[in-house]
């Protein structure tokens, strides 16, 4: 399992390294007198790539066994990240359009899906409490210029 993880790590690094080098090659290396904008990224990405190769090779030498994954376990595993990250994205989409109260409430509601079997009533109450509390702290308390509520688009 550790070897598999290392293999993935190495490959991820190689992927990132390649991406940065490819995009960065257009920026120009420049001369020693005037280093171009591409110099640092390409050098650094190359170092990253070399490390990626080293880690991958080490992993392969240690012998890799693929873990057996079941679909149901994978889905259960993905639940929390999707719920949490999804709630943040929803906030970014709704904060300007609908205001702080709605956006915060949605964050609470959607992120609660991260755990299976949550009490709906608890979620609703928590949404109201937290969005209200946030309004008190951030807008009334600290004086942040954030719109609380807005209905039309």
């Amino acid at each position: 399992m550790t070897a598999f993880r290392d293999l993935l790590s190495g490959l991820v690094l190689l992927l990132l390294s390649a991406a940065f080098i490819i995009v960065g090659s257009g920026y120009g290396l420049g001369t020693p007198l005037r280093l171009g904008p591409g110099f640092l990224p390409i050098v650094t990405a190359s170092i990253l790539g070399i490390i990626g190769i080293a880690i991958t090779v080490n992993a392969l030498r240690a012998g890799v066994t693929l873990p057996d994954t079941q679909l149901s376990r994978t889905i259960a595993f993905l639940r929390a990240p999707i719920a949490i990250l999804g709630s943040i994205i929803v906030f970014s989409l709704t904060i300007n359009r609908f205001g702080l109260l709605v956006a915060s409430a949605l964050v609470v509601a959607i992120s609660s899906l991260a755990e299976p079997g949550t009490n709906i009533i608890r979620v609703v109450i928590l949404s109201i409490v937290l969005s209200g509390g946030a309004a008190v702290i951030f807008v009334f308390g600290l004086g942040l210029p954030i719109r609380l509520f807005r209905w039309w688009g």
Partner: protein
Amino acid sequence: MSFIENIALGFQVAFTTQALLFCFIGVFIGTFIGVLPGLGSVAGLSMLLPLTYHLPPSAAIIMLAGIYYGAQYGGSIASILLNLPGSPSSAVACLDGHPMSQQGRAGVALLMTTVASFIGATIGIFLVAVFGPALATVGLAFGAAEYSMLLLTALFAAGAIAQGSVLRGLAMVALGVLLGAVGTDITTGIRRYTLEIPELADGIPLVVLALGMFGLAEVIGRLTDKDAQTSKHARVSLRSMIPTREDVGRSVRPIARGAGVGSFFGTLPGTGVTLSAFMAYAIEKRVSSTPERFGKGAIEGITAPEAANNSAAQTAFIPTLTLGVPGDASMALLLGALMIHGIPPGPQFVGQHPDLFWGLIISFWIGNVLLAILNVPLIGMWVQLLRIPYHYLFPAILVFVCIGIYSVSNSSFDVTIVAVFGLIGYVMRLLRFEVAPLLIGFILGPMVEENLRRALTISRGDPMIFIDSPLSAAFVALFVIILLWTLRGTWRKPRPQQNQTIE
């Protein structure tokens, strides 16, 4: 004026009712802002700056300064208790502070943090008072070549913070440097890696990176790992806050070292509290006879960085006040406040406004005393936070993170990116990569590049400039030594021990 007379003058200015009042307000707000994730001292200062326009200059600066160093105290509270940094400089407190909290020693961690912060700040203030103007010349001795070599060494040392293999740590530093390159290149004006997105022209905000990778990734990680949720040691009594003799003994030298590191980096223009905290951690780990304890609740791992960032917060005033060069964004705001009040900082500052200068210094110390007094009883309250079941806590954390990030530039785009980095941070967590080295690479990378280019422009392309100056050559030598030492270490033991549980 003799030193004693100066101190007396300072006490006169700082002990007026108004000065004390605003000092208190400042440190109180500062701590609060520091605790809230996403809202660092920069956001707090920019929000409260307009309020100070109508105050006399001394009161205004005293309050703003209080917010600034108060935030350093507060930031570590969230780091220790929730593994969620309140500000980027507190991210390092997560590394050992949170494990301590999980071992039921949250109270001890918080208390030692406060103590270390206070001592660090006191040492920093002392240095400002005694050496202030003289220390300014140290900052001046650092030209582009010296800076670039110093920071390059620091970058490499950052790879050493990693608990796993140094290779992985360095990979993260490299990735951090690359992420730091995203945005507009200062020297040429070309946009790099912005993928045609206009909001990225200014680069990725530090607080977004830090909060996404440390904070969000942590929340996701906690929810997928069922065992990590219930805090087994919810009971906290006054007794459990008291550190053992061993704790205290172990912390004396780290605090001293941390304060030294912080004072040094605080004085240098351009480097600030975040860097000081991380460097102190790296140094502690390097000089410790038992480095494997780090990351698992070693008390040195929090006392050194906390002493460092608080002493850096104080000594950062040296270049700001005596040279007019701010160390970081918060200092820049304070500088702006001074100028708004018609008091330009610079070499004339101490001479023309001795009452303000010394009044500030004494007031800094009063502020730290207030903070220590305020924070200690509150520790019990903070620890109660741990008893809240996580399913109430994590939505609150998310709301605070969202609003905190949004409030930095009223930008919903920033909130989107924090989600992206949350994902990246989580993936890194799964692959057992560490975030701390990445953060350092992100901060230092652009600075290394800028100074490297500047040095080569000054020398007209001649690389010998890096060895010409004794200071620069010293750093090059240091870099080579650390490099060889690290390689030797990797050569001896084929694979460092990794106590990783398989998921």
